């Protein structure tokens, strides 16, 4: 999750104060990982320094002054570019799983035992995400779905690998 680009995107919707930006970010994007106020204001300062937002006005309050941030044309261009570019597909977890399976075979350990443990961990995480999905709103359900589909893809890989372990063992040990 790119915090600066997400905050810029929220500002593209409407000018806002840091407090309101944090609230909106946490509501939609910060599930389990809310932004700290320090992170919000540090990010907004960097965006202002880089000319992507400007402060439109400052309202004095009981606490610190409330600054209202407005996105600039440069900021809007960056948001537009970000939203229209596909994300780089990243098969990240599979490479770790693959390395553990192959190393297990090289070291004469049971790759099947490892894959059983991994399947167990995946299923438990899928249970937890399903609970979140059933208890939450549509935003929660969409986030949980994203995780569920990725975990399911890993599980397909795990099952296929289990079915190929004998052949893989031979190939790794003969290499």
């Amino acid at each position, binding site marked *: 999750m790119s915090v600066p680009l997400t905050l810029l995107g929220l500002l593209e919707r409407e000018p806002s104060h840091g407090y309101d930006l944090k609230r909106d970010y946490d509501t939609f994007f910060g599930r389990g990982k809310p932004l700290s106020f320090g992170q919000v204001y540090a990010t907004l300062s960097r965006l202002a320094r880089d000319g992507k937002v400007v402060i439109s006005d400052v309202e004095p309050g009981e606490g610190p002054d409330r600054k209202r941030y407005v996105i600039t044309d440069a900021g809007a261009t960056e948001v537009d570019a970000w939203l229209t570019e596909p994300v780089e597909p990243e098969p990240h977890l599979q490479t770790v799983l693959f390395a553990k399976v192959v190393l297990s075979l090289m070291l004469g350990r049971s790759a099947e035992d490892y894959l059983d443990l991994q399947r167990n961990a995946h*299923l438990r995480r899928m249970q937890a995400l399903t609970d979140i999905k059933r208890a939450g709103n549509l935003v929660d359900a969409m986030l949980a779905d994203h995780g569920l589909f990725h975990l399911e893809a890993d599980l397909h890989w795990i099952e296929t690998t289990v079915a190929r372990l004998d052949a893989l063992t031979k190939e790794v040990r003969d290499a």
Partner: protein
Amino acid sequence: MLEARDVKLAFGQTPALRGATLAVAEGEIVAVMGPSGSGKSTLLHCLAGILVPDEGEIMFDGTRVDQLDETRRSTLRRDRFGFVFQFGQLVPELTAEDNVALPLLLGGARRAAAVAEARPWFAKLGLDGLEQRRSGELSGGEAQRVALARALVAKPRVLFADEPTGSLDSLTGEQVMDLMVDSARAQGTTVVLVTHEARVAAYADRQVIVRDGRVHALAAARGAS
């Protein structure tokens, strides 16, 4: 409450179950997973008294199901068990309402009483207004919800579901699973759910894997660390 003990069954020379053991607690939702041909549906059929194992025991509430004759197993299935399968479960000549009432009618209930009992399930499962439709006039998801209502209307002790979402798209399948889990929990029905889909299995309290005709218990129960 429901248990398979070292169950073996072969179809001709082909072994389907090679010593499958599984215990299901009252009110528990257990997903039986496994690749095609692993024996997971055969295990469900043995637990439900549809198939009789060559060896081993099937226990339900202290009764050896595998030792009952076909008539008694048939009575057990009708009175204590409910079933949801992947395809073609509704009687096409009957309306949706009569399909749901069918287990009650077969159990000896009068028609008016059976229909009165069937009717609330339509609201419960989001099927309002579809009572008089026949299965050919229902979408896949609607037909599966009618099948679910029919499986649960007689308040079975155990619901056996074999790939209940297999013919549905993801979202419709989720609706069916949500309704199945909520309804089963509401009336304390135990569920044995056979599926090859991990996303469906994740609705269960516990998952087991059938591989080469044996049961491998893997995932911890829901809520356990």
